[in-house]
């Protein structure tokens, strides 16, 4: 066990995987200088510029080249800098990486990881704040991961790198500095398995990424009122852990889904709809209003979910 930041945990996972497997390499802008958030710090010194590759501002080629390089037996880790810039490479990710194995009848595989730092962070406004996990969850062929803790940013990134599928890996920018314990020498975390943050029998709260921490606050507030929330950190958005979610909601008969992304068409809809279909119990979602993320703090606030709102929503359902 060692205490480290979410950022450092990701850095270590990459470093360990690169040591373990010489086929693993990383590519993206400014990686030699440590990457835009410092999450690659020191890696080029360790592995050299051929394995920690500084690229031009060519998102389409970064992603497209990773597809070709993955097909030919290497395991690229693609850095997109901000999830928003991955929108410059959607053909490459969605039409190529996600579909190659299938449309070629299983001949080729595209084992790549696309790191897409996501979410609202320091008033970054409309083009640097998006959370688009729902998009990628909708695309057959892709795995989608949203780690919430240092331990998971370590264990899930390792798992993503070892995975033979293309994985969209969405770190939350506002979590870089979060500290937590990371088990040493542990096996990678299983993809597709949720984590029960705290157990409770009164209401199921399903969430992921930064909202795990906001929801944990809310759960603590509810607890003070004697309401026990079963709080689930989904961790992997696709495939999502239906078993844990349906199991919990079947017991509590109430399922609240909370995410930072825009609520309309967000992945919360998938979960709520599934729970309603399968169990016919109460469901509710909390997500951002359908607004581009604004710059000014009080406006940005309008897009955020405070613990109090989760508490209020949970109360309404009881």
């Amino acid at each position: 066990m060692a205490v480290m930041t979410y950022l450092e945990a990701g850095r270590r996972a990459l470093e360990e995987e690169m040591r373990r497997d010489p086929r693993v390499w990383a590519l993206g802008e400014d990686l030699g200088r440590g990457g835009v958030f410092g999450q690659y710090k020191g890696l080029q010194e360790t592995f050299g510029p051929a394995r920690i590759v500084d690229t031009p501002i060519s998102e389409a080629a970064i992603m497209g080249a990773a597809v070709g390089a993955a097909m030919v037996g290497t395991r690229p880790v693609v850095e997109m800098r901000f999830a928003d810039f991955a929108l410059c490479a959607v053909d490459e990710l969605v039409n190529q990486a996600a579909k190659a194995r299938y449309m070629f009848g299983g001949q080729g595989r595209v084992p790549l990881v696309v790191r897409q730092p996501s979410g609202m962070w320091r008033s970054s406004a409309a083009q640097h704040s998006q959370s688009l996990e729902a998009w990628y969850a909708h695309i057959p062929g892709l795995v989608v991961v949203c780690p919430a803790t240092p331990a998971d940013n370590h264990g899930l990134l390792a798992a993503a790198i070892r995975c033979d599928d293309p994985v969209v890996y969405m770190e939350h920018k506002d979590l870089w500095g979060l500290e937590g314990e990371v088990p040493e020498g542990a096996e990678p975390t299983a993809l597709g398995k949720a984590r029960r943050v705290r157990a409770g029998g009164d209401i199921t709260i399903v969430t992921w990424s930064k909202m795990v921490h906001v929801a944990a606050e809310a759960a603590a507030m509810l607890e003070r009122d004697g309401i026990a929330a079963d709080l689930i950190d989904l961790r992997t958005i696709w495939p999502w852990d239906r078993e844990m979610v349906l199991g919990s909601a079947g017991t509590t008969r109430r399922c609240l889904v909370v995410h930072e992304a825009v609520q309309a068409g967000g992945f919360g809809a998938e979960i709520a709809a599934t729970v309603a279909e399968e169990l016919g119990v109460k469901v509710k979602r909390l997500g951002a209003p359908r607004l581009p993320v604004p710059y000014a703090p009080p406006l940005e606030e309008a897009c955020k979910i405070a613990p109090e709102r989760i508490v209020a929503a949970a109360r309404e359902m009881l």
Partner: protein
Amino acid sequence: MTRPNFDAARMLGHYRTMSRIRAFEEAAEAGQKSGEVRGAVHLSIGQEAIASGVCVNLAAADYIVSTHRGHGHSIAKGADVGAMMAELYGKAGGTCRGKGGSMHIADFTIGMLGANGVVGAGIPIAAGAAHAVKLRGGGEVVVCFFGDGAMNRGPFLEGLNWARIYDLPILFVCEDNGFAATTRTRSLSGGRGPDARAESLGIPAMEIDGNDVQLVDETASGLLSAIRAGGGPRFLLCRTYRLKGHTAHDTAPYRPASEVEERRRHDPILKCREALLLHGVPAAELERVEAEAKAEVGSAVETARRMPWPDQSIAWEDVQDVGAAQWR
């Protein structure tokens, strides 16, 4: 006039490859017209010399990346015509198990990394394949085929720049048939052409008659040697002509019959045939080659027709490993 460096056996090989491509394309066209071959089918009739002339210089371990017009490249690289035809027919024994069809024809066993339904998308993919080769210290080369229309897509710039700055073992082959679908490419392209663009990105470029298979072969051979020697990327612009419409359904009313007539006289197979005859290869030999090609393709069609449809259960295979059983 006889040609210098004429190698009759090699040229006969080209004649065979081109005839096999031609026969395949004609069968694909017929299949599309009969409705047995579905989806969009893009024929390379008239462009066979490029596929044959380039790919003869490749080993099985080398890679190619292709386009929507990918049958010829696949055959020239060594793909099995039977499995290819089965793919067009959407049958279980197709190269892609019936999941891809013409636009996604691929054969990874011989380094054919796939046709592509998105114009220009193959360029960064090919650059990435070459990047991987370099990364693992391999000696293979990658050939990236694309059409003149692709020069106006952003990935052209990004992919070529990529190959240049990382000094990758890749040959870019632009098949300039003058058209992007129904539009004359040059009318919507600024500057001198794709070769000038490649040069502006630092990649040495050449322009040749892509209907002269000997010339394509010799030029590609030289460029590939330079690449194999660590010389970095090269660009080969091949002038050619699409003798058929954009798709097998397109009658191409947007170009004068006289133009097509004129171009038909430069049919690469015709040219190759003339050269072979001139160099003393008997006509009967050529006819035998053609007949064999037709027979091979004919039996591929028959086999494809008789082959069963893929079992619907395979629709659920090859999607992904993680969550493989979770469909909703």
